[in-house]
């Protein structure tokens, strides 16, 4: 197995503002963790938690101001060029394919950059096309693709040189529900079939649940939680949220949601949350106590005039808030 990533007291301090009144910000502080080879790790936290800064240090494109780190046995900011040949990186908001061209010529260039022969590069494109179900896309101009299709091609681009470790920074951002699900399943498949270590940053709870086998939660630059996802799911991700839109669409005469009790409005395991408007009912379900489909049945059978209904994950900020409440800052 072996260790893919090892950090100890890793930190990054930024100095901002004009010369007078300069202030320092610890974007990352005292980060210590290890990731095994072949592991799928979700590195999660709200905006500004230090996720991207950490990924930049681990890929060698940003020097830390304190601490040490090794990635695949190399110090990223000292051995960056050697490391780039062994890692892949996908930044959800930074494309590396050109919109006017199909991916294939860009793959040819990247293959050359990584020292692949033309034959090896062509073979790899064939294999990745099959694995990512994207062969047809490789000859289609990137600009004509949906975001989900483009992200599959971007993923192929960073897997071309068969990296041992894949860094993904918010890869599912902007994707629709189906696109997200497909992308997550591809990551799991890449890990299962190639043994690629996956280091994923996200602030989407579903990314953790469906991709990772372990999650590190960061906030204010430090680690606030580090656990197997199964444990985390039991302890922290056991809440599902049901949003019910009531009134006009179902019954034009209805003016809004009826009054409900805050505690157990739909029986055991349910809690009523404050809603944005009176046409909306928001219910939290503790899935350790009661399955969500059972609550859905109760809601549909109730007097509530249901116009629309969705089952959501609680926002990550709330999960982290739960972590704080349970463990202290």
């Amino acid at each position, binding site marked *: 197995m072996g260790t893919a990533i090892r950090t100890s007291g890793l930190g990054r301090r930024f100095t901002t503002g004009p010369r007078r009144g300069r202030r320092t910000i610890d974007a990352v502080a005292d980060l210590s963790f290890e990731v095994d*080879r*072949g592991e799928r790790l979700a590195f999660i936290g709200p905006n500004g938690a230090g996720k991207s800064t950490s990924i930049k240090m681990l890929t060698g494109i*940003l020097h830390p101001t304190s601490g040490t780190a090794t990635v695949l046995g190399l110090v990223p900011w000292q051995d960056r060029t050697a490391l780039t*040949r062994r890692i892949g990186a996908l930044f959800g908001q930074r494309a590396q394919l050109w919109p006017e061209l199909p991916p294939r010529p860009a793959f040819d*260039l990247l293959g050359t950059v*990584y020292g692949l022969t033309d034959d090896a590069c062509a073979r790899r494109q064939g294999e990745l096309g*099959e694995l990512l179900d994207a062969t047809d896309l490789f000859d289609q101009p990137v600009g004509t693709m949906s975001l989900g299709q483009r992200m599959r091609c971007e993923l192929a681009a960073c897997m071309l040189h068969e990296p041992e470790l894949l860094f993904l920074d918010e890869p599912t951002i902007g994707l629709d529900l189906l696109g997200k699900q497909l992308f997550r399943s591809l990551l799991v498949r890449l890990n299962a079939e190639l043994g690629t270590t996956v280091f994923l940053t996200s602030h989407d709870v579903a990314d953790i649940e469906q991709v990772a086998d372990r999650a590190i939660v960061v906030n204010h630059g430090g680690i606030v939680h580090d656990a197997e996802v199964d444990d985390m799911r039991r302890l922290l991700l056991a809440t599902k949220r049901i949003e019910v839109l009531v009134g006009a669409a179902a019954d034009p005469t209805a003016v809004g949601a009826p009054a409900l009790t805050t505690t157990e409005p739909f029986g055991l395991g349910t809690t009523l949350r404050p809603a944005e408007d009176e046409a909306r009912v928001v219910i939290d379900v503790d899935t350790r106590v009661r399955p969500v489909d059972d609550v859905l049945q109760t809601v549909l059978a109730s007097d509530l005039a249901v116009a629309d209904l969705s089952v959501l994950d609680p926002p990550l900020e709330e999960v982290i808030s739960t972590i704080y409440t349970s463990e202290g800052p």
Partner: protein
Amino acid sequence: MTAAPRPALGGTGSPGAGDGAPAAPLPRVLWRALTLSARRTAGDAGQLALNAAFYVLVTTVLAQLWKAAAASLGGEIVGYTAVALVWYIAATEMAVNSIPIHLIPEIGDDITTRRIEVELLRPTSVMAVRVAHTVGRVLPRLALLTVIGVPLAWALGGAPPRPITLLLLLPSLVLAMTLNVVLQHAFAALSFWFGEAKSGWFLFQKLVFVGGGMLLPLEVLPQGVAGVARYLPFAAVAYAPGRLSSGHVEPWWLAVQAGWLVVVGGLTAALFTGGLAHMQRQGA
């Protein structure tokens, strides 16, 4: 926790690049980058047509101005006949107009927004690949302007003063364009430290327009200024191809251009190396 072995993709036994594949030779990478970008530009017929139309318009207007000026001064200005001036302008406009006008701000924007940092994730030279991409992007435009420019100059001014110099014009244009691209990368690289590229862009434009002889032969400038300008790289960007196409058999200009390309290339590489290291240390 998953800890699967790492077979080659599809079980073909192909070695991963990370497993010790030899580094790609830089010229091969640059050639691939250049041809890829050339393909992109060649596929954009609308942009090429716009570029050509702008060239025809500007060259026609400037050629008429210089012809009128020469006529009012007895048919010659600082040793250039009206015909020579038309060929001079046609060549300098080919060399300079083939380059995207906002190149410095574009690169500067990539630097200041830190989009450039993802390029550090590839085992190759960031600056060299960027230059290769830009040269590839510009080559089809230069080829088009040359194909249009030669007959246009012929139509506006008549036969070239010495047709033999047209043979020197072609390599001179390629060297001028490449040097121009590298110089613009050097100016843009200053934004690693200054945080903006607009001022450098403004300065570069003025230096090429006047000090480089794009709008007028350097001999028109005051003697002292012309003397200095001739020894600056900007003259190799515009004045050199203009001088050759206007009937001056001075092949040593090609050596001057190549020399500047080596010097400015080294300087730009140093600026990018220093700038990227600065960015890695300083962060946001």
